[in-house]
């Protein structure tokens, strides 16, 4: 069965919050996945003491695990592809002509070494 990297919607009505998960393609959206590799909060936030009005979105991602799952053939959905391309794991799929492209920064080193061949513990 195809293993996908996709979002699972949690949160509340009008307050979405996503887990970035690795799961079998035919399982339900919010069913227990193979592994949770991060979160994506799609609600734009302001910095507390920033008056410029610039908004940001928070993502948590285990880059090492994401690389591992891409390496063994997990298929990211478009949204996850976009998120993964931001940390340089994948080439960006869609480029919008005439718009400034995000600058791809090499990812910082992971806080601890992950054993990449072990089964996920979740």
């Amino acid at each position, binding site marked *: 069965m195809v293993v996908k990297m996709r979002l699972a919607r949690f949160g509340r009505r009008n307050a979405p919050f996503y887990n970035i998960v690795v799961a079998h393609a035919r399982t339900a959206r919010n069913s227990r996945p193979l592994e949770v590799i991060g979160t994506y909060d799609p609600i734009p936030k302001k910095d507390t003491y920033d008056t410029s009005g610039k908004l940001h979105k928070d993502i*948590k991602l285990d880059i090492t*695990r994401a690389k591992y799952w891409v390496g063994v053939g997990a298929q990211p959905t478009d949204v996850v592809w976009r998120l993964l391309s*931001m940390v340089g794991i994948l080439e960006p799929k869609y480029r919008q002509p005439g718009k400034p492209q995000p600058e*791809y920064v090499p990812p910082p080193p992971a*806080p601890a070494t992950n054993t990449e061949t072990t089964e996920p513990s979740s």
Partner: protein
Amino acid sequence: MPPRIPTSSASSSQALLLNQFSELVISPRLSASSSHHNGLITATANSTFQTHNNSQRQRSSLSKRQFSTTPPRQRLTRQRKQFWQWLETSGAVMRDATQPMNYVKAVGARDTSEDSRDMPFPLNPEFRSQSVLSDEAREIIWKSVVEEGQPIKVVSARYSVDMRRVAAVLRMKAIEKRWKAEGKPLAIPYAKAVQKMLPITQLGQVPHEPINDVHVHSYTMQQVFYPTSESREFTRGDAAKAFGKHIMPVDHKIRIPELINLEKQLAAGVDRNVAEEDFTKAALESEQKLKEREANRVRELEEAKTKVDTGRFEFRIENVNVEELVGRDGRSRKAVGWRYGVPFNDRKKGMVKIPTKVE
């Protein structure tokens, strides 16, 4: 059903007279006393158009209350009599609300000494009004910290105002000054009214509050039998260890530990100015250390994030290690993301739903 007004169906001259009279002097007592004409008036039931119109106008101009037929209670009860007596004797000061801290005194209490001045509830001597800082005092604190750049610890020790209160004053002053600059209205009458009800400290007169209070840990409330050698020095630090491994000695617990050194120096006969200079230096150093530590913490957090600006939003991607956080059974509270198979009680009865931070 319309209210029964004696004049509503008036045709007799007596009723008309009443009608005019009640227009002149509108009082519930009058309408009550006129109600016994009711029978007579309703017996001659033919009302002319004119009087009917008149009564309607009157009905709309009077409130319902004035049609009450209940006579107001005139009897002077004993309590009421005592109240009036009190208001003319010892309670006379209460007529005038311009005095500050004009609290009610206990009935028959002759004690007008300073001791009972801050008791808002005359029969509860345990409840005392705590004094607040005056406007000038708050301005002085703001100036000495923000304009003169003195450390908060020094300001707190000099004026004997708790460090947390000093910090609070600075925050409130910052907001106040910003609002003034923005031209926002301040609730000054409210502040004045509150200040009138409470004792007020002017800085430099008396200590505002004790600044060396420490939390007493329940472990230190017990008696401990701890054998130790007589030849050995037994300090407060050792005493803290005897009570428990995690118990801190008082020297570390007080908010301004630099004061200990100051007192030691004074006891050793060092000149007061020199000792205070040393204290200021130590306080400044500790404050700078704290600032650096906090700045480092924030910087490290920020540096661990990859920032990608797409123009519209900035995506901040934090690298985490899910395997460490997920726990043995995958249900750890520290795990990344929404948890599976465990209830999320955020909307349950009794849970606090007030947001804990404002952004």
